[in-house]
């Protein structure tokens, strides 16, 4: 079997989309960079960016894995309040120093350009403000904060610090999401009918306590005092995508939730639904559960001409029969979903088609986390704030909305988005 036919086989056998993909006539101006170009750019950067990681848990370890793909990054230090976890994470980042106190790390490690914060959400505030105060560029995982007070404080410090501050809502850096947004902003879906988003995964969200950590420290997501639950920890990413696409912020949210599956004494819901009302009158419905996995994570934008469905590494457009036809659609790859036919969204399709490599463009070659981190590292190394996907202001707004969504789910009532907080952020 030749290399190309082997690849075709692998793509087809994995259930990915084969075929031509979308021929994006006139889309060459879009800021979509193929991964091969990303790799080349990484090698062009002047020197490695020295970064430190605060938070050596699961997300922190995933971040190390993605950073290690980049030539342009050196992980100089890892910090976690639990010594064994700090050491364990540092072992994965060869050559990294290990710390249990982020202030000691900031004092000790010289030439540190940036810090990535992957602590539990309710523990973002202190390291974020300290790192900004120490003159470091910061990437902070999303949601930015678990309270409006913390979101405002972090955003204020980020603005005063004058350094780059990115929030890990990766949708804004995801090449397929960027491509889809360009369609959305160019009115391809026309009048927005509704936005639907979901995240379903069969998992308990409960982890064993290790090292010196207590159960409540490891399982903070299950503690309503510290956790925004599914509406915030997962839902904030979908809410951020919706706000980014529509360039609008919802005004209120209704919600409800229950412990449907994991009856282990937790009080935070394992299954939720919420509905956010946007100024245009349309609504975003978000559903999530830890008890069933069908459908995974998707965001769908329904419009009068078309719908766009995003599935993290893949995206599709579903056109209505009466929508105007454009030339490229004739050549587009299509995928059948029961009775509906979706056009596959492929980043940089025109260039790939010219190279005869269109099939290789289906699906993303890296996890979404990679692109969020890549944007941040590029912004730091080339001093280009615009390269950041989600900045502190956008991240804080999303946190304020997500906090309201979490309250709505917990109370079962309609909750107004904190307009005063949003005004304060805008001022």
């Amino acid at each position, binding site marked *: 079997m030749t290399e190309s036919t*082997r690849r075709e086989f692998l793509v087809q056998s*994995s259930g990915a989309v084969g075929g031509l993909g979308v021929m994006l006539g006139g889309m060459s101006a879009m800021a979509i960079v193929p991964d091969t170009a990303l790799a080349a750019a990484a090698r062009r950067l002047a020197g490695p960016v020295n970064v430190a990681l605060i938070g050596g848990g699961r997300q922190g370890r995933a971040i190390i894995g993605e950073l290690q*793909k980049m030539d342009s990054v050196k992980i100089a230090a890892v910090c976690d309040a639990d010594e064994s976890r700090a050491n364990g994470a540092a*072992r*994965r980042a060869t050559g990294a120093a290990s710390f249990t106190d982020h202030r000691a790390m900031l004092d000790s490690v010289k030439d540190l350009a940036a810090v990535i914060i992957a602590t539990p959400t309710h523990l973002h505030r202190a390291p974020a403000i300290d790192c900004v105060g120490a003159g470091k560029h910061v990437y902070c995982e999303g949601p930015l904060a678990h309270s409006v007070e913390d979101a405002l404080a972090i955003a204020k410090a980020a603005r005063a610090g004058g350094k780059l501050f990115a929030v890990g809502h990766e949708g804004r850096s995801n090449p397929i999401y960027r491509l889809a947004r360009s369609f959305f902003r160019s009115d391809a879906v026309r009048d927005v009918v509704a936005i639907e988003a979901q995240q379903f995964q069969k998992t308990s969200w*409960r*982890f064993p306590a*290790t090292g010196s950590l207590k159960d409540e420290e490891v399982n903070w997501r299950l503690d309503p005092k510290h956790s925004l639950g599914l509406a915030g920890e997962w839902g904030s990413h979908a809410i951020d995508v919706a706000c980014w696409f529509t360039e609008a912020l919802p005004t209120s949210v209704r919600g409800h939730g229950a412990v449907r599956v994991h009856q282990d*004494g937790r009080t935070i819901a394992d299954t939720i639904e919420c509905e956010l009302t946007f100024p245009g009158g349309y609504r975003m419905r978000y559903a999530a559960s830890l008890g069933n996995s069908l459908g995974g994570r998707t965001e769908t934008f329904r419009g009068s001409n078309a719908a766009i469905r995003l599935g993290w590494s893949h995206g599709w457009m579903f056109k209505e029969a009466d929508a105007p036809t454009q030339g490229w659609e004739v050549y587009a790859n299509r995928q059948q979903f029961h009775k509906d036919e979706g056009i596959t969204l492929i980043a940089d399709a025109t260039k790939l088609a010219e190279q005869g490599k269109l099939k290789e463009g289906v699906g993303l070659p890296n996890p979404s986390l990679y692109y969020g981190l890549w944007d941040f590292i590029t912004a730091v190394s080339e001093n280009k704030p615009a390269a950041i996907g989600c900045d502190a202001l956008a991240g804080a707004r999303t946190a304020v909305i997500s906090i309201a969504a979490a309250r709505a789910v917990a109370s079962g009532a309609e909750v107004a988005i904190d307009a005063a907080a949003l005004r304060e952020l805008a001022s």
Partner: protein
Amino acid sequence: MRRTLRAIAAMGTRFELVLEAPDAASGRWTNSALNTLAEACVEEILQWHRALSRFEKDSLLSFLNREAHQRPVRVDPRLARALLIAREVFDRTAGAFDPVASGGTMADVDVVCDAVAFRARGGAPAPLALDLGSIAKGLALDAVQEILTDASPTAARELSAFIHGGTSSVFVLGTPSIEPGHPRVRTRRGEHAVPLPMDGGASHLSVSSARPAAAHGTADTSHLRVWGRPLPSHERTAAVRLSGNLADSGAWAEAWSTALCVTGDAAPFETWAAARGVGAWALIDDAQGVHGLNLDCSSRHALECA
């Protein structure tokens, strides 16, 4: 006895897990604690599934195959270790065991300080296609072993575990109450009790089978399975040659069972086992009959040789 069961689909097969703790340890190992630990094991297997899938474009393995011929790629030290294991078995079998699917051989893969690079050939970068299907399940089981031994220190072993991937990759910790007592390998010539120590330690068993190409496929599909399974699962089918071995790590066991299956020769495995100091066992069922290493029918843990 407290017991928790889990099953997941990963690596193209079904993993099943049993964790047990004696009632005497109920203070520490509540049902909730056992469930939590089982979840952590399941999540670890899924993480390795995502990292090592050759079918997912955004997996770490796909990234390696795209990039490592152009530059060294830093990887998780555990993956680096697994590649070093693969390289050693490749060397010890004179290249018969080779997880490089195309573009070169394992000799073209350099692993230095947790970085992987594919060697240039003839002055030009050589794209390789690593396929770690032959050791992936063992690698995942090694990671699970790490979680379980961290949770239950050797000095006061409280946990027992029985975990298998597709019935052909088995990890046993402590003394799980599996039926009918010990895992067995069923060959065309009968059932063979696998000499798992079951003495409180940890053991890995791996079985591989060679499947004939479809064009030649007239294989007897009824004779192969590893059992002692705690939960219902599908039978393995279609084998013409079977090999099994026992080692102190899943990655080693997987690499060697594939190598034994490919070569039909237990000598390299024996040399390795002697050098490593493990009481390893190997079985090969092929045209020459059942043969292998440490097939001592008189010992307590003997194979019941046909």
